[in-house]
């Protein structure tokens, strides 16, 4: 098992209800630097809602989200909005399933990577440009495409660009919602390799939501299984997948064809 860094995220009894639909019920977990937590579960089980509560996008009804920054810990939903808006973009990055939700399609690939850097105070064009190029290379996009609009990129390229945009600011916590969904299998495989090497290289803490047990097995150190807003099973990925205890998890695992 790889060595773990210090705790980056701690979620305590998080609740979120939409009308009469409970999307998250008493969700608790914690995450360390360099660790990847996978979240699997059926559609509507509250995975995206949980991520959005962690990303400062929707306020939970109850519970706490603690995020450690360099030398202090913030209580995400106890701080005022202005401080949260200041804190989140420099600390947390949310990668959407559909790259169109996470990119600005009307500005260039380089501009997409540079924007969050400029929002964080980057005021040197040359170094913004250099960072953009460096990240395009990291995510395997030809540097000559730096001034192209993402509109003309393939789906896989758009997703890699979204990842570059999300990681270039060096967030400590990265939240990915089905990052490989909607891509064909060979593109998925390449993207997974890329994500795995970036996570290793950068030592970030990652929460990755996925439908795909294969993705979970490849990326996640630990796995959390959600059903109807509750965490029903949690453990090391291999443990959960090879010896599932909860009937739902057993169903989930057995429904995957082994080849």
């Amino acid at each position, binding site marked *: 098992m790889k060595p773990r860094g210090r705790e980056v995220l701690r979620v305590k009894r998080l609740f979120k209800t939409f009308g009469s639909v409970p999307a998250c019920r008493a969700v608790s977990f914690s995450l360390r630097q360099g660790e990847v937590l996978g979240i699997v579960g059926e559609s509507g089980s509250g995975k995206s809602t949980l991520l959005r509560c962690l990303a400062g996008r929707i306020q939970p009804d109850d519970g706490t989200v603690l995020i450690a920054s360099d030398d202090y810990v913030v209580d995400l939903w106890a701080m005022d909005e202005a401080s949260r*808006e200041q804190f989140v*973009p420099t600390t947390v990055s949310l990668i959407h399933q559909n790259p169109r939700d996470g990119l600005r399609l009307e500005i260039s690939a380089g*501009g997409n990577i540079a924007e969050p850097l400029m929002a*964080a105070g980057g005021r*040197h*064009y*040359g170094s913004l440009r250099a960072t953009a190029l460096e990240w395009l290379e990291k995510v395997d996009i030809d540097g000559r495409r730096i001034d192209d609009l993402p509109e003309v990129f393939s789906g896989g390229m758009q997703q890699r660009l979204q990842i570059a945009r999300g990681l270039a600011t060096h967030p400590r916590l990265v939240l990915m919602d089905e990052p490989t969904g909607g891509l064909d299998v060979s593109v998925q495989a390449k993207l997974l390799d890329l994500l795995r090497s970036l996570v290793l290289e950068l030592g970030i803490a990652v929460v990755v939501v996925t439908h795909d047990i294969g993705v979970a097995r490849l990326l996640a150190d630990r796995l959390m299984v959600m059903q109807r807003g509750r965490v029903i099973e949690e453990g090391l990925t291999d443990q959960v997948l090879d010896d599932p205890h909860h009937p739902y998890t057993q169903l989930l695992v057995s429904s995957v064809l082994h080849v």
Partner: protein
Amino acid sequence: MEADLIFDDDAIGYSFAYLDEMTKRMIRRAILKAVAVPGYQVPFGSREMPLPPGWGTGGLQVTASILGRDDVLKVIDQGADDTTNAISIRQFFAKVADVVTTERTGEATIIQTRHRIPERALTEDQIIVFQVPNPEPLRRFIPEEAVARKIHAFGRYGVMYVRLYEDISRLGYVAMSADYPVIVNGRYLASPSPIPKFDNPKLHRSRALAIFGAGRERRIHAIPPFTDVNSLDFVDHPFTVQHFETCCSVCGAQDSYLDEILLDDRGTRAFVCSDTAYCAEQRDKRIDA
């Protein structure tokens, strides 16, 4: 400038400077707030003016609210005192406030302007009032008013730099040549109104109070005297102003903003000062010398 307060309205039946005293008070309150929070857009209850919105009703209301009987008013449009818009606004105030008007920048106590700042440096005895079509520099990128307001509140102006980044990467320079956004007092992003960026440096630590009135958008913002005003730029691509290869063909000025004009129908062209009062002054100086 408070002389109008003791003006006897009833005896004459008309309000001094067109607007009623309650309205002027409301607008003055907005102006005071704008001065207290430099660069922040203060909403105000814009009134009907005898001029269509978009023709300077914001500037007109600001001027009407601060005008006193001792003031000397100058009105310019694109730098010129003799354009239709400038003349009609000047005549309007001469009629409804009976104030002295002038074309000389140095003589004016209030200068209402559209699209230019006079070349002659303004002094602490002067107020410059801008007519503003669109006071919100974020509008081009953030159409939703509520979102724009939050961006101002949080001071997160990264989105504005995207425009600069995109221009430099595509063209090698920033293509905005007028209404070039500024940061006022190190805090609020503001529009200087559609003045050429040539005029932006004049706002920086200006001795004169600058008030910006947007009638249609019902906003007033201000830059108090001696306030830092910085045009957006990158460290390695500093803000620059237009540079003219030639001098004014009328007065010979080399430091003024020039307009290109057609002299005949064969396409003969010349460059002349856009600031007509400055041009006249320089010409007189040359003749004297």
